[in-house]
């Protein structure tokens, strides 16, 4: 802890600027990572196979209906111009334990569904009519494949830049701390005692950016929850915590990597105890 404090104390303005910049790029990497996971869904795609399409209608038939009556209903529906297909299934096939039958009717268009529903509700032997909900209007947050690729490129570039800046920052920091490192080596301090504070600084950087991401996601969630973009809010509700934790871990890993890169500089002759 003493050495870590001393190392922190030797951070000067330019070094601090480089390390902060490196931290910002780590944050940008984490933000791109979170964006890929949180707004990955295309709002126009139906992901739930249980949901009905808007032109689909299910007619629940009474179990008391005779086979002839079922047949008559089938012929009546199939004969209509606004019906594209009619499929009969026993209720047991669709929902175990149920009785009776079901007609799965597909209207010719979404507009024709309303008429079909009205008709079905007046048919004798039909106990219930289920209809699909209209698909919500596409929200602008769905990611196209191109946007995904761009985000991935941004993620990789930000990681690379953060590592580069981190190493530059460490080079300056260790240059201003080189007498101390030489003295530590001369004193018989273990390599672990020397390397640990250096790596810890990187881990601290990653931890801070990771926490910043958690706060950012939380604020975005609050803002979207209060807004009108329901689809995004639902996506956030389900995954925000997981993505926050994953981002925090990724931040720690990236910070640790920057710290290790910095520690690799300690092998240079500049820090040799007997001088170069």
């Amino acid at each position: 802890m003493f050495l870590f404090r001393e190392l922190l104390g030797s951070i000067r303005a330019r070094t601090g600027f480089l390390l902060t910049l490196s931290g910002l790029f780590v944050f940008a990497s984490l933000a791109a990572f979170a964006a890929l996971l949180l707004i990955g869904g295309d709002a126009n795609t139906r992901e739930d196979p249980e949901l009905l399409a808007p032109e689909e209608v299910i007619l629940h038939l009474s179990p008391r209906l005779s086979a002839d009556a079922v047949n008559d209903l089938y012929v009546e529906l199939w004969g209509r111009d606004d019906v594209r297909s009619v499929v009969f299934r026993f209720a047991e096939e669709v929902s175990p334990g149920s009785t009776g039958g079901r007609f799965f009717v597909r209207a010719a268009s979404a507009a024709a569904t309303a008429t079909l529903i009205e008709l079905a509700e007046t048919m004798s032997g039909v106990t219930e009519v289920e209809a699909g909900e209209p698909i919500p209007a596409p929200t602008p947050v769905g990611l196209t494949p191109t946007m995904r690729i761009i985000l991935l490129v941004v993620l990789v570039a930000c990681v690379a830049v953060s590592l580069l800046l981190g190493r530059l920052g460490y080079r300056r920091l260790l240059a201003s701390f080189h007498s101390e490192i030489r003295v530590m080596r001369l004193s018989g301090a273990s390599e672990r005692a020397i390397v640990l504070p250096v790596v810890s600084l990187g881990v601290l950087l990653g931890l801070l950016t990771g926490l910043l991401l958690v706060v950012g996601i939380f604020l975005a969630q609050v803002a979207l929850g209060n807004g009108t973009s329901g689809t995004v809010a639902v996506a956030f509700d389900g995954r925000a915590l997981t993505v926050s934790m994953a981002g925090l871990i990724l931040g720690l890993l990236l910070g640790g990597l920057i710290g290790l890169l910095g520690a690799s500089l300690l092998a240079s002759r500049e820090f040799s105890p007997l001088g170069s």
Partner: protein
Amino acid sequence: MIQVSELHFTTDDGIKVLDGVHLHVDRGELVYLSGEASAGKSLLIGLLAGYVQPQRGQILVCNRNVARLSREKALKLRRRIGVLPQGFVPMPRSSLDNLVFKLRAVGDFREQAEEKAREALETVGLLRQQATEASELSALERFRLGVALSICDEPMLLLVDDLFDGLGSEDQKQVCGLLERINERGMTILTTLRGPVLGASRGYKFLRLVDGRVIEG
């Protein structure tokens, strides 16, 4: 304290720097080892302190074979050896803080470190400059600070590389006097230097490193 036998060392370029060095230093001795530039003095100090692995030969320091020590034992031995390297540059902080940093880095608490640091500064005659920034010290005072830094943890052996490096001829007598005073307190000292030993009292061991071998001065 130091027993070196048949020590050989060849650089990557094939230059034979040490060619069968034999060296014996008893506990409590002060030894001046003189040699020209690139004679292998710093290499010998590095080998004795365990920073350089020997290629051939045996080095016993405090009755331990430095080449065969585990990492932990090598670190323990290193803590019993004070090394003042050639071209020593103190840390950019006050004299006292230089010593306190070192002592705290090896595990001392602040109060204990400050006490030991003041003792060491008094030994080298630098107590009045304890609050002075190292960059403001003269060459001789910086040397004194280097010695204080090397002895503050009370090592058994002090190795000084290139004793008069950067010092004027008028400072050399004081430097020798300082080492002799420390030696009189029981510390074994081996110091290397380039030229002849000026200002040293008689009664101490003088050796020379010539053509990769140590000979009587």
